[in-house]
């Protein structure tokens, strides 16, 4: 039942992310979430454990738990910003929305027939919830960094789903995915850096010259 524990942790981290204004704290939360999820492959498939899952766990932990946070902290230092100021959606409202999203995702997953050999019935809902949470972060926050975080959470949700439900995903594919995500974050980091240098702010709501 460690899987369920992990999933609960994921949910909590998501809610915390929705509620927190300090970028540093958010990054730490994402790091924690990454770490926890890193354990998922192993824990979810204890009965038929294979080297493939172990490697996957290690890779995940290394990437999501260590590399990304480091990159993001660097970006924060570059941008010399500590907190999100006046987001589109307030933090309390965000939390409420998060809870709603949780409900919706449970409802939606009720429609799907789960495979029998599944580690936990919560896998799919939580994955979906993470996706929603990530989207919410992207939509409701102004700081470019928050959007990168949102993207990561979304990615984590998909990862949860993949590891939990589609265990058969070839290893090569997963490596490719991890690599891509890494590059994505890297690229976004650079982009944030550039933007910050050009505009001396990273408020993406002020990036609205191109319209019509």
């Amino acid at each position, binding site marked *: 039942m460690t899987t369920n524990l992990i999933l609960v942790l994921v949910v909590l981290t998501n809610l915390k992310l929705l509620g927190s204004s300090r970028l540093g704290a958010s990054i730490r939360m994402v790091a924690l979430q990454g770490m926890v999820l890193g354990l998922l492959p192993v824990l979810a498939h204890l009965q038929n454990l294979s080297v493939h899952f172990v490697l996957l766990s290690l890779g995940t932990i290394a990437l999501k738990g260590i590399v990304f946070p480091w990159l993001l902290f660097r970006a924060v230092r570059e941008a010399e910003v500590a907190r999100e100021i006046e987001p589109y959606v307030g933090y309390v409202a965000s939390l409420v929305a998060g809870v709603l999203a949780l409900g919706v995702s449970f409802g939606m997953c009720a*429609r799907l027939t789960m495979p029998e050999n599944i580690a936990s019935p919560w896998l799919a809902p939580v994955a979906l919830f993470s996706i929603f949470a990530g*989207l919410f972060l992207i939509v409701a926050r102004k700081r470019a960094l928050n959007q990168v975080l949102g993207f990561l959470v979304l990615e984590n949700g998909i990862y949860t789903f993949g590891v939990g439900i589609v265990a058969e995903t070839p290893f090569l594919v997963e490596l490719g995915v991890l690599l891509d995500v890494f590059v994505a974050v890297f690229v976004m980091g650079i982009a944030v850096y550039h933007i910050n240098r050009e505009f001396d702010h990273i408020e993406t709501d002020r990036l609205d010259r191109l319209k019509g």
Partner: protein
Amino acid sequence: MILLLSAMVVLLCGGIIMLLVNRVGKNYSWLGAFTVVVAAVMGCIPAVEVLVGGFTLEFRCAWSVPFGEFFVELDPLSAWFLLPTLLLSALSAIYGVEYLRSWEEKRSLGPVWFCYCLLVIGMVLVLVARNAVLFLVAWELMALASFFLVTFEHELESVREAGWIYFVATHLGTAFLLAFFLLLARETGSMDFNVWVNQRIHTQGLAGILFCLAIIGFGSKAGFMPLHVWLPEAHPAAPSHVSALMSGVMIKTGIYGLIRAFIFLGTPPLWWGWGLIAIGVTSGVLGVLFALAQHDLKRLLAYHSVENIGIIALGLGVGLLGMNTGAPALIVLGFGGALLHVVNHALFKGLLFLGAGAVLHGTGTREIDDLGGLLKRMPWTAATFLFGAVAISGLPPLNGFVSEFLIFWGAFKGGILTSGPVAVPLLAVIAGLALIGGLAVACFTKAFGIIFLGEPRSEHVAHAHETGWAMRLPMLALAFGCGLIGLLAPLVVRGLRSVLEELSGIQRDVVGINLATTTNTLTFVVIGALTFLLVTAALVLLRRSLLAGRKVGTSATWGCGYARPTPRMQYTASSFAQPLTDLFRPLLGTRKRIVPPNGLFPVGAALKTETPDLTHEEMYRPMFERANDWLSQVRWLQHGKVQLYVLYIAITLVVLLVWKLR
């Protein structure tokens, strides 16, 4: 058939060569004209054969395009339209050689001639194509070529505007044609015209839809009110020989297509006839009224094209009513008159546009009120223009009278034989034609009288000069043609026999009988015309003998006591048309700007009237503007906020998941 095909090949090669050899200052127009003439001659031969023999030439070869087949066929109907097309193309080309000369230093004439050749190819192909895809390609080719010809003087803002209006109108028309052809293809499972003829659509509702699609699609090319907006814009913009070609024959491809559509659609219900008659009366009367109110010669002529298309529509309407009531006389007279009018209009409208071009060429203006007294300076142009004016007014002994005579007669026949539902529309035809005729006389007495008679009204006329032979000959030829058809009417109408058999679908002998009576009557008409000529000759002699040896003096025009009249005292086009335009103000929406004379010794006074196209001003322009504003409303969707963009995606996803996931 081979001749016709090779004619097209000749045109294509000629066009390409023209594109290659012409440079700025190096003008090979004569070569282009030569090509067109050669091609026209080659094409006319089979057309005449078909028309006389009443048989059909066809040529099929595989064309590697889905649903496409290079299937062309020359049947009497196509041949009937083909002849004027080729004739006018050749004459306008000859005319063009001299007309375009004034541009040779400014730009390369290659593209013009290339497009000209393409336009001719397109028209010919439209007339002979028997495969829907081929037809559509030809149709679009025609539109494209003519678009580039219309925008020949694209330095001018107005010309660009005109080009836009023209291309939009014709292309939106094509959209309806697409629907038309595809629907037919779905019903018959084929893109082949002959298949469509063999399995006509008999389900009423469907046929009705097809009919409406055809009316809109082809009507926008032919220039039915209110789809005519592009004519008064495009014809003035285009070079005159192109206007002649477009107004003379290109818009007729719309009529041709409509008639083809009738062949596909089986027996018509009554309301088709009513519809066409309604269209005909509107187009005819409004067309001539707007023409009457114009001061720009070429705009005036453009509106007259609308009028004549209206007359043709009336003829077709009579024919349809005939088909519905099974009265062969009406079929023969209605369709016969319409078809004959197609040819006649090609002749005199071509002539008039060429004449207008000559005036423009000589004086550099199209403003009727700036002209006057040109007859003395341009005798040839004036004489030929007079021919055209009499012909288009539908007066004997020229060709215009003959075709209107047939339609009139058909209407009268129906009017005395049939009962209400048919007779009343026919009454409308009669009244409409009568009114159109009267107004046409008014309009062309104005055009001819103000331009060519009286005293010059402005400096433009002072340096006016008669055209050279290259421009003169085509006009003379066309004027001659007008007279010829007027006097050989019975023969010409006999040529219609096979065409009528084809499109009416009634037995040969019935057509034959009705056609015989028609030709007999026409012989009387011709006799009348000839007597008129003889009497005229006699009177001329009489007059000469009377005046012989008597004192024939000259003086100033009688000014009712006023001794020194000046040109500015003459009646102008505006004042000439004023009573009529005033009477029909509600329909025309003529705008007046008056600077009244004031004070005891008034120095300046001015009256300026302008009559913009009502449908364009009241219907289309507002429609497009409103659409534009309305569309601009969606601009906020693209507000530049990346967050909301992502939100769109999220919403789309959730909605689909909730809605579609069952």
